[in-house]
C-alpha cells in the first residue's frame, strides 16, 4: 500500500488507481507483417523487473487519465511521475 501522486489531481491512495503494467511497449506499426513470435513478444513477454521499473497507471477512481511512473518494485517506492508521451526521467 502506498501513495501515488497523480499529475492531474495530486497525491491519492494507490487503491484509487489501476496498474497498467510495463510502460513503453509500442504497438506494432505493421501488424499484418508480424510473425507469430513477434506477436507473442508484443502481447505476452514482459521484463517483469525486480528493481526500477517504468510503468503505466490509470487514475481509475479519479480523473481517469493515464500517466507513467518510475517505481522500485523491491520496495514500492515511486521515484518519479511523468505524463504520457513524455520521455522517462533518468533515475
Amino acid at each position, binding site marked *: *500500500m502506498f501513495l501515488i501522486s497523480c499529475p492531474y489531481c495530486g497525491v491519492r*491512495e*494507490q*487503491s484509487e488507481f*489501476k*496498474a497498467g*503494467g*510495463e510502460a513503453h511497449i509500442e504497438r506494432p506499426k505493421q501488424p499484418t507483417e508480424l510473425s*507469430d*513470435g513477434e*506477436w*507473442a*513478444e508484443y*502481447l*505476452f*513477454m*514482459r*521484463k*517483469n*523487473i*525486480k528493481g526500477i*521499473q517504468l*510503468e503505466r497507471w490509470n487514475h481509475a477512481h479519479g480523473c481517469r487519465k493515464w500517466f507513467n511512473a518510475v517505481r522500485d*518494485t*523491491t*520496495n*514500492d517506492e515511486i521515484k518519479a511521475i511523468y505524463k504520457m508521451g513524455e520521455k522517462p526521467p533518468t533515475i
Partner: protein
Amino acid sequence: MKNKYSIFSLIKNAFSYHENWQKAWKDPAPKKEYDAVIIGGGGHGLATAYYLAKKHNMKNIAVVEKGWIGGGNTGRNTTIIRSNYLWDASTGLYDHALKLWEGLSQEINYNVMFSQRGVMNLAHNLQDIRDLKRRTHGNRLNGIDAVYLSTEEVKKFCPIINTSPDIRYPVLGGTLQRRAGTARHDAVAWGYARGADEMGVDIIQNCEVKGIKRNGDEVEGIETTKGFIKTKKIGVVAAGHSSVLANMAGLRLPLESKPLQALVSEPVKPIIDTVVMSNAVHAYVSQSDKGELVIGAGTDDYISYSQKGSHDIVEGTLNAILELYPIFSRMKMLRQWGGIVDICPDASPIISKTGVKGLYFNCGWGTGGFKATPGSGDLFAHTIANDEPHKLNAAFNLNRFVSGDLVDEHGAAAVAH
C-alpha cells in the same frame, strides 16, 4: 541409510527425550559439477529432485536455494489441494498431482497430513451457476469427482455459512470435490528433501544464484554465492523470481510477479471441517489442525517483489468472510503476510523446455501452485531427464504463447486474478 519413521521409532526416541533423531538432510558444500541443478528449494524444486533421483536414476544432482528450504512460497500458501479445473489439459495435470498426494505420506515416509476434507466452491450469481455447472460436467467427463450442490446442500455440508437470501451476494449453489482438501505445507518440503537427500541429492541452502552461464545455445553452469557450479541441465523452479533468473539467461517470460496475501486467525475449537472458496466475493477459508482459520486474499494488480500487499485487499476479503460467516465477527487475526506469485496471461503454469539447450523452466503457477507440488515435480523431472515433456505437461509449454494454444483457466482459478 535413514531410519524409517514409524510409531516404533517415535516410541524409541521418546525414551531419549527426542534428542537423538537423525538429521533429516545433510548440509553439503556444492561439488564442482553436477549432472543437473535445480534452482529453488521449495516444494516443487525438491519434488523435482526427488523424482529425478527416484524415477530417472539421476543421483548426481543438486538443489540450490537462496534461503532455507521451504522458506519461500511453500511456507506462505494456504495449503489447498484440488483438481476441479475446467480444461482437459489442466484436469490431467492437477489430478495427476492429486493422485500422488493420496499416496505421498507412504511414498516418502513422512506424514504430510493430507486431509481429504473436501473443497466447496460457491456460486453467488447466475453466471457463477452456469460456470460452475459447466465445470462440474467437464470434471466428470474427465473422471474427476465433482458434484453440484443446491443452497440447501451447501448449508448442510457447511452449516456456519450464511445462506440467507438477504445478503449482498447470496449463496445460490456450489460445487464440491470430496477428494480435495489440505496438507501440511512445510512437511511436503521437508519430506521431499529428506527423501531426495537419502538418494544422494545435494541440498544446498543459503546459496543464491547470481548468473546463468551460456555457451551459445546451451547452458554451462551457474554462478552462485558459493562459487561456480558446472552443469549441463538447469531446472529453474523459482516462483515469483522466475523472470529474474530468465533474465540471467537472456530470456523473457510471459510472467508478471505480484503480491498475494493470506492471513490466519487466533486458534479456536473445530468449527469448519472443509475448505470453502468463493471466487465472486473473493474469500476462501479453511481451518488448520492447530485451530487457526486460514484465509486467502487476492493479488494486487501491480508488479511488485516487496512481499507485502495492500491493506484494501485484505479488508475486501474480510468483508466478504464476515458476510458469509457472521459467526467469525469477533475473531482476531494473528498474522498476515504476502508472497510474490508469478502469473501467466492464461493463469496456467509453464513446465517446459526453452530455446536454450539444457535450460528448463517450471513457473507461472500464479496463485495456485501448492496443490500441484507432487505432480509438478514428477512431470518436470520427466521433462529434464528426457529433454521432452511428459504427455500430461505437453500443453504447458512455453511455445503456447506463440502458437496461441493457451490453457485459459481464469475461470477455474478459485479466486479472481
